[in-house]
């Protein structure tokens, strides 16, 4: 056992070492050494994760401290690991996707002056994320939670001279902080009532406190578990970008594409999902919290998918798609289908990484053009990118036999069978979302890869001219020097990760039998016996082939197909129609283009409001009242003193020293006279 425990340490420390070498010594060792050392770190990390994973599958779990962070009173705060099927799975996903992104970055960032810094950041991110998932206590969870937020902040603002990037990273950090605010209060309540932040102890004691109520407002008592769980979930809403704290994620696309894949799709944004699943023993004790989660997840899943349908920026389409998929995971959590949520997290990590990295490959080919209106017909120029992205898109749409089908279908079914209040609302939106998902996934593929080649003649007015006017575009900073070139396939360091990620995007779904319905998670995920949705599904599960066969007779499948069909009609068969529809349906389209006005509202109400309030408090409170009125009386004394001191102010230190001694003596005498 000792050796395997050393491996636990190696998993996060290898990327940390790489990050430190590349970050602190990057200027000395050069570009090549920076990527060699970080990728080496990632290889060690992945290998160690794999060994740990194998060990866990043998039934060996671990829960123990690494070092004592702080002792205060009778409370011990540790840094420690909990290694079980859940954390081992997350470790595999994180280290695998991260390694792929590291390799991909060699190609994508090849010409960037911040090359070493970038590698340092993504390795640091991997370290933080691993510490988050391997934690055995709430403190370290919060550490990892904020640390991934920090790296996300640094990476969104990687191109720190671009105003949009540094607006987006500040926004991301602050919106996440709103979530963390709730999260920290939830942790504080846990510490207050359980006296510890250790997962195992808290979970073991949770049943006993299930009946407790707290009176937050005089006369109104709340179930303690409901308050704790909702506060914790507010944290998840920030990190996993759930409505209304989702606003930072689309803007985070200002960061370089590799991190959109790694952080803002495959791993970091799933931290909230992971956290709720980890806390299932607590969440199972509060039906109210689960209902809340269901509703939030449903709103996110459906309404964010709608926004994806009108975006032109290839990365933003995928970003809104990520929001929607996270919504599905959240709904699954609310329906007590934790294993389904983690399974969707697992499959989504692969196919969303493929989509983002593929989009990056397109962006390279288009010389940093991200606007799909200036693409089209790319399939024949970059076949590997096309095929791998197609796999990702089909998986994203939830069509069999690709990975996304199994996980999404399970979630929809679980919602159907769930008895928790709000489940039916969620079910309706989830099913409707399947249609939208099919549509936007294939819209992206058709728009970018099929149809007319619009990259060469984007100066000429054509069918999309009307659309061009209707929206400010999100052109990249390098735009403008690629008009004459023919796009071509990206180098191997770029397409190889695509292929390696496309494979699990096809096949990962086939593990559903053990993963969701088997004993894969053991006792890690707790489901209350009264929440029967997953148990019912398990009874009806008869293998993957039967599941696919059965799907063809269900509504979601045909809705996804219909969505894909609509995309074909609009973007392949009749490419003039979208322009017409935008004019005819200008009101709903504007609402979607404006993202429901949330960004405007937040900027006006929260950012503007805080500034106005601060300004008011300062000018009225500090300057006018305290200094103006209260210190005003003293001010006259001040001027009197000033006149006096002007004579004393000789600038010679011994005068002051003399005054100091006199003063001290004076004070002493004063003291003794009164005695």
């Amino acid at each position, binding site marked *: 056992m000792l050796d395997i425990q050393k491996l636990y340490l190696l998993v996060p420390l290898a990327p940390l070492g790489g990050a430190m070498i590349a970050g602190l010594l990057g200027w000395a060792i050069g570009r090549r050494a920076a990527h060699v050392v970080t990728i080496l770190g990632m290889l060690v990390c992945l290998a160690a994760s794999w060994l740990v994973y194998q060990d866990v599958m043998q039934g060996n779990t671990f829960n123990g401290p690494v070092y004592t*962070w*702080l002792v205060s009173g009778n409370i011990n705060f540790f840094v420690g690991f909990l290694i079980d099927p859940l954390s081992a799975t997350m470790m595999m996903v994180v280290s695998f996707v991260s390694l792929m992104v590291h390799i991909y970055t060699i190609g994508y960032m090849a010409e960037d002056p911040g090359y070493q810094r970038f590698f340092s950041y993504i390795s640091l991110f991997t370290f933080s994320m691993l510490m988050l998932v391997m934690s055995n206590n709430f403190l370290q969870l919060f550490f990892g939670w904020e640390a991934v937020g920090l790296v996300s902040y640094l990476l969104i603002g990687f191109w720190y001279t671009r105003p949009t990037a540094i607006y987006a990273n500040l926004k991301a950090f602050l919106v996440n*902080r709103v979530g963390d605010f709730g999260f920290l209060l939830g942790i504080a309540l846990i*510490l207050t009532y359980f006296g510890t932040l250790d997962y195992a102890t808290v979970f073991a004691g949770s049943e006993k406190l299930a009946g407790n109520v707290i009176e937050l407002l005089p006369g109104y008592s709340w179930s303690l578990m409901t308050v704790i769980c909702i506060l914790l979930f507010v944290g998840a809403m920030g990190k996993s970008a759930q409505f209304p704290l989702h606003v930072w994620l689309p803007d985070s696309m200002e960061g370089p594409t590799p991190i959109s894949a790694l952080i803002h799709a495959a791993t970091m944004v799933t931290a909230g999902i992971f956290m709720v699943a980890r806390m299932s023993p607590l969440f199972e004790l509060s039906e109210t919290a689960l209902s809340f989660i269901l509703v939030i997840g449903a709103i996110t899943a459906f309404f964010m998918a709608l926004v994806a349908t009108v975006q032109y920026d290839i990365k933003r389409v995928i970003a809104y798609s990520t929001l929607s998929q996270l919504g599905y995971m959240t709904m699954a959590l609310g329906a007590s289908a934790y294993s389904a949520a983690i399974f969707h997290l697992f499959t989504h990590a692969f196919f969303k990484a493929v989509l983002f990295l593929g989009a990056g490959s397109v962006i390279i080919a288009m010389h940093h053009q991200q606007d799909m209106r200036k693409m089209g017909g790319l399939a024949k120029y970059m076949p590997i990118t096309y095929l791998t992205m197609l796999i990702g898109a089909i998986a994203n749409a939830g069509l069999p036999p690709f990975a996304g089908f199994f996980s999404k279908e399970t979630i929809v079914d679980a919602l159907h069978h769930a008895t928790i209040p709000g489940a039916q609302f969620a079910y309706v939106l989830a099913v409707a979302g399947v249609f939208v998902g099919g549509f936007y996934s294939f819209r992206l593929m058709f728009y970018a890869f099929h149809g007319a080649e619009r990259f060469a003649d984007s100066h000429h007015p054509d069918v999309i001219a009307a659309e061009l006017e209707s929206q400010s575009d999100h052109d990249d900073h390098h735009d403008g020097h690629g008009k004459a070139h023919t796009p071509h396939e990206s180098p191997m360091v770029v397409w190889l990760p695509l292929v390696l990620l496309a494979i699990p995007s096809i096949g990962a779904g086939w593990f559903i039998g053990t993963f969701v319905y088997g004993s894969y998670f053991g006792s890690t995920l707790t489901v209350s016996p009264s929440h029967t949705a997953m148990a019912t599904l398990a009874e009806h599960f008869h293998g993957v082939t039967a599941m696919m066969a059965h799907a063809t007779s269900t509504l979601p499948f045909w809705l996804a197909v219909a969505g894909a069909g609509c995309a074909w009609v609009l973007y392949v068969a009749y490419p003039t129609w979208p322009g017409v529809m935008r004019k005819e349906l200008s009101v709903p389209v504007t609402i979607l283009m404006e993202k429901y006005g949330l960004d405007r509202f937040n900027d006006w109400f929260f950012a503007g409001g805080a500034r106005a309030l601060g300004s008011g408090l300062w000018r009225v*409170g500090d300057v006018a009242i305290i200094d103006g009125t209260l210190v005003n009386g003293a001010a006259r004394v001040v001027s009197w003193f*000033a006149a006096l001191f002007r004579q004393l*102010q000789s600038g010679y230190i011994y005068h002051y020293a003399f005054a100091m001694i006199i003063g001290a003596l004076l004070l002493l005498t004063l003291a003794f006279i009164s005695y």
Partner: protein
Amino acid sequence: MMHELPLLSLAIWLPIIAGIAVLLTGGDRDARVARVIALIGAVMGFVVTLPLYAGFDIHQRDFQFVEIKTWIETFGVYYHLGIDGISLLLILLNSLTTVIVVIAGWTVIQTRVAQYMAAFLVLSGLMNGVFAAQDALLFYVFFEATLIPMFIIIGVWGGPNRVYAALKFFLYTLMGSLLTLVALIYLYNAAGGSFAMRDLYQLALPFDLQVLVFMAFFVAFAVKVPMWPVHTWLPDAHVEAPTGGSVVLAAIMLKLGAYGFLRLSLPIVPDASIYLAPMMIGLSLIAVIYIGLVALVQSDMKKLIAYSSISHMGFVTMGIFLFNTQGVEGAIIQMISHGFVSGGLFLCVGVLYDQMHSRQISDYGGVAKRMPVFAALFMLFAMANSGLPGTSGFVGEFLVIMGATQVNFWFAFSAAITLIFGAAYTLWMYKRVVFGDVVNPQVDALVDVNAREFLALGLFAILVLVMGLWPQPFANLIHTSVSELLAHVSYSKLPLPAQ
């Protein structure tokens, strides 16, 4: 405890003597000599505090390294020194900060170098005196005496409006302290002619008098912390002070007030402290929220950091008056951490100011492009100021929020808002100064930190990280002292009510 060397006296007088020695070098003709002597004095001042750390017994409940000598026999005033873990941490912080300040002022100060260095050395010794004094009058003398060098530092080497700021600082704090003297004299009489703190701790004062004494102390210490609404001297003082003055002011001087609450208010008048705790917590929360919002709209970097200091000190005063282990230990750790973080931030502003002669945020933008190393260090301090886990800024705030939840959920709720505000004002400033494109040609001409600046910032940076990743060694020093302190508050000095 017997020691061959009177270590505490050394910690106090060595910097003061070094300061006098520096003064003796005279004017600016021998500036280099003055600097070298000052550095030697500061380093030695720090070195003599190391045996304090090494020899400190963390389980000892009594004060350690005690020295008692008669000062004024007829009045029963003693030169009585001794420290507990809380004092020890502050003395270490103070002595180290002095070294950093001397390094930071090395080339920046070109006029009256000897006087400048001397003022900081003397100030350092006096503040060690405050932290080591076990006689209330001695405490008071040191406490008041610290005003003078700081007054000089602001008034002589400060900005254009320095006289106003220095006077505001001086009068505000002096006015606060006079009532304390009255209270001390009263206590002296009540204790039968003793200023010894351990005698004052034993005094069983009636409730009304406890409240009076508390209020007298409160005025002095609240001004020093500073607590809302007696905080308006601090932004002015910071803006006008030279970089070194701002660093010492934020890192150490503000702690004198909080230390006064811990050393005098709580043990001497525990019933009044408990009775008035809601007021103290209320004022602290106003500091956290109101001042957090005010910090957001500042256009002057130093003013912004000054307001941020007030907001962060709100956590200190709040933690103290929660009367539980997490609260008080969090408050003390926050005091130390705030020393590193605000010290580092003021140094950062100083580095920019020395080259640009502007503190206005709007004059900057794109600094990262010209000063990448500086930008990285500045980022670390900015994140610590935002309370990011892994930096020292998180530890104290976290513990105080944990302690607050045990008392009242809404206290914790209000305090935790700093998570949002703290990040907002700090990172928004950082964004406007460091990120973005270079617009101002002066920014384009900036050069990155030199070795001396790197050393000064690096020392604080390492401390920020060490304390954030492993606060246990720091906390170990204060466990016994805090439990001793809480023992004072845990029983009432009032006679039991007649049944």
